[in-house]
């Protein structure tokens, strides 16, 4: 009986192996037969761009990628023996798909468009493109310097530039003019850095726009903060928490956004500046009462399924310009505009998202990938890509054209505010790399959520607990690096 079983198992295993082998043969067979049929003298090198780490996955955007793919393959690709392919994956699956491909030795050659967060999560996986830039004498002064530098990393004493900026999305105040008018308030200024435009002033406005279901505003002693039907300001929603922390500076005028020492080895999230980060959030919610006591992203409530401003129940939303996808629905429901971000303790900061393309270190054809990369950043293609993603072009000479196009479409909006925001871009960037990136991010989320949901004793305690957790993550990270 045992013998029979063994024989049967062996037969089935052989059958399964033959099936697997024939399947894979089928693939390679078909490709090899097609190669034989069309046999070019020199085999083309295939370069794959993986899209899905950020924007670029809408059907209309995919169509542009396909058009570019054809354009490249018919021109530069033909000449240089490179075949370009865009591989689009859903945003939610991008990380898993990427790690699987890399682990299986089938790494894509280029990834993008990808934000700084996507870059940071896989910091070890990207190629340093600086040698190529030097070799080909690429003029980096074509781009805003700060945007180029946001993709430069200094880790363990090694500096590397992983990408060039394709487009950027600064944050600004997007406000509902109808709500401002009803409250009889003056709109936020268009000019950045005006002396009297501070968060105190913004909260003053926001209190008058925050209304409970009985019609009282947040200044009223009878104001019912459990039944708010309209909020004045929602600044830290739909943004990374570091965008909020980036407004705070130490006594030397250095941003405390990273919350750790320059060598990334010691957490400093219990510093007086970080305690102030939590205290200010506490003030915004519980004293000024102008911000919701939940993250809209966390589920349901006042803003419904719309974005906070799109709900038509919010006066001012400090957010990124990638909200452009919602402009059409805003237009249909209320009048809106864009204003400058106020100063916090004398510092004006516009948290900025930046998109880039990166070449993978595990690419089997880095030189050919660089050829494709250069083509993506050529004037004509760069402009097409920017239109496709909706960002402000990081290439300076295209910015005036971007402004004209926006003005032509929506003449009443203060588009110049977004262009001027570039001078106030956060540094370090709100998404920039730190060791144990996702875990540190998660710990910060937890700390801030504790304040928002009222599950905390004091801001000092929140800061202390966060610092302990982050120090643990840093120690673990560096111990693993040294092994």
């Amino acid at each position, binding site marked *: *009986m045992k013998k*029979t*079983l063994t024989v*049967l*198992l062996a037969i*089935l*295993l052989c059958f*399964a192996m033959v099936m697997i082998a024939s399947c894979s043969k089928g693939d390679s067979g078909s490709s090899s037969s097609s190669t034989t049929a069309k046999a070019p003298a020199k085999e083309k090198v295939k370069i794959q761009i993986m899209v899905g780490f950020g924007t670029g996955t809408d059907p209309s955007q995919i169509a542009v990628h396909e058009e570019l793919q054809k354009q490249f393959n018919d021109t530069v690709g033909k000449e240089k023996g490179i075949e370009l392919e865009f591989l689009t994956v859903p945003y939610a699956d991008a*990380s*898993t798909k990427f*790690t*699987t491909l*890399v*682990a299986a030795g089938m790494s894509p050659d280029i990834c993008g468009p990808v934000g700084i967060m996507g870059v940071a999560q*896989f910091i*070890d*996986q990207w190629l340093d493109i600086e040698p190529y830039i030097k070799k080909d004498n690429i003029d980096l002064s074509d781009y805003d310097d700060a945007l180029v530098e946001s993709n430069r990393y200094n880790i363990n004493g090694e500096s590397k530039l992983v990408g060039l900026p394709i487009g950027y999305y600064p944050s600004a105040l997007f406000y509902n003019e109808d709500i401002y008018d009803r409250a009889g308030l003056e709109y936020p200024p268009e000019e950045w850095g005006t002396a009297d435009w501070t968060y105190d002033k913004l909260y003053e406005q926001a209190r008058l726009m925050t209304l409970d279901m009985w019609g009282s505003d947040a200044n009223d002693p009878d104001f019912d903060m*459990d*039944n708010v039907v309209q909020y004045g300001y929602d600044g830290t929603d739909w943004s990374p928490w570091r965008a909020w922390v980036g407004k705070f500076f130490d006594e030397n005028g250095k941003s405390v956004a990273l919350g750790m020492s320059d060598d990334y080895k010691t957490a400093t999230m219990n510093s007086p500046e970080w305690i102030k980060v939590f205290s200010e959030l506490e003030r915004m919610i519980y004293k000024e009462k102008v911000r919701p*006591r*939940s*993250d809209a992203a*966390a*589920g*349901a*409530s*006042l803003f*419904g399924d719309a974005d906070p401003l799109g709900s038509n129940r919010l006066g001012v939303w400090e957010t990124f310009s990638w909200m452009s996808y919602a402009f059409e629905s805003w237009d249909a429901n209320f009048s809106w505009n864009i204003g400058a971000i106020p100063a916090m303790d004398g510092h004006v900061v516009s948290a900025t998202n930046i998109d880039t393309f990166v070449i993978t270190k595990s690419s089997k054809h880095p030189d050919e990938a660089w050829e494709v990369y250069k083509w993506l950043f050529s004037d004509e293609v760069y402009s097409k890509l920017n239109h496709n993603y909706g960002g402000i072009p990081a290439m300076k000479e295209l910015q005036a054209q971007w402004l004209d196009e926006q003005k032509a479409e929506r003449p009443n909006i203060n588009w110049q505010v977004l262009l001027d925001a570039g001078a106030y871009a956060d540094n370090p960037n709100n998404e920039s790399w730190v060791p144990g990136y*996702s*875990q540190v991010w*998660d710990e910060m989320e*937890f700390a801030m*959520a*504790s304040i*928002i*949901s009222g*599950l905390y004793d004091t801001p000092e305690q929140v800061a202390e607990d966060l610092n302990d957790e982050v120090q*643990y993550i840093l120690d*673990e990270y560096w111990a*693993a690096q040294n*092994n």
Partner: protein
Amino acid sequence: MSKERRIIPQSERYARWGYAFITPWVIGFLVFTFLPMVFSMYLAFTDYDTINPPKWVGFSNFAKMFTKGEMWHSLWITVKFGILSLPLGLVSGFLLAYLLNMKIPGMKFWRTIFYLPAMISGVVVAMLWRGMFDDQYGMINFILRTAGLRGPQWLLDPKYTLYCFLFLSVWGCGGGMVVYLSGLQSIPTALYEAAEIDGCSKFQQLIHVTVPQMTPIFFFNLIMGLIGMFQYFAEPMVLTKGGPADSTMFYNLYLYKHAFQFRNMGYASALAWFLFMIVLLLTLLTFKSSELWVFYESEVKK
């Protein structure tokens, strides 16, 4: 010299066919379940980020798991939910089945209605209840407001979030109900007739006939409920993602976070094996305890 042909007994021929039929499943089990399990056991002792090769780290994943408070927090959330939801689900499923076992007109319709929630996927149920729990526009707070009461922020206030999941679990008790119903229908009517002749009231019949006869079904549902409790994932993932402030960070969500958000596959594997041990232990304990309270008609107690 000719080889003598062996006569294969019929039982062996049947067995061969049996093995032939189960072999595809056995191969599937080996390739897609057993080998990944063995691999995850190995990963539990490594530092593995899914890109670079695993690095052997001995017991450090387990040490971290037991010394960091986060795992215990998520385990406590899961156990707390189980302590509340498991008895509630067992009792409500049984009572519902008891009611639906009565001979009244339209019973098939009601059985279908109560079973429907069990047919809907967890994700859809969660989406549905997300709307119901909305503090501004949800039906629950609307009813409370109509009654002059102030409804809480169900999904946003950590004091209430866990209770939302209790609603969900009781709402889905139709799955257990069907099993109870089949159990109720297999109780011999002679037992009820005998009890009635002996003067038992309906309530006494329930306690002394129905419940003891149903203990194997309770036992089955308890085991399934226990396993399901530790696998609870889809609903919190859709509704709260573990928040606010980790108040709904169920064990499986915590495991998922480490595996797929942080790419700590080694640590996640250690968590998975610890979970396996807990479920195994609790299942064995439940089996052991069943000798005391589960009644099988054919069983003769010594």
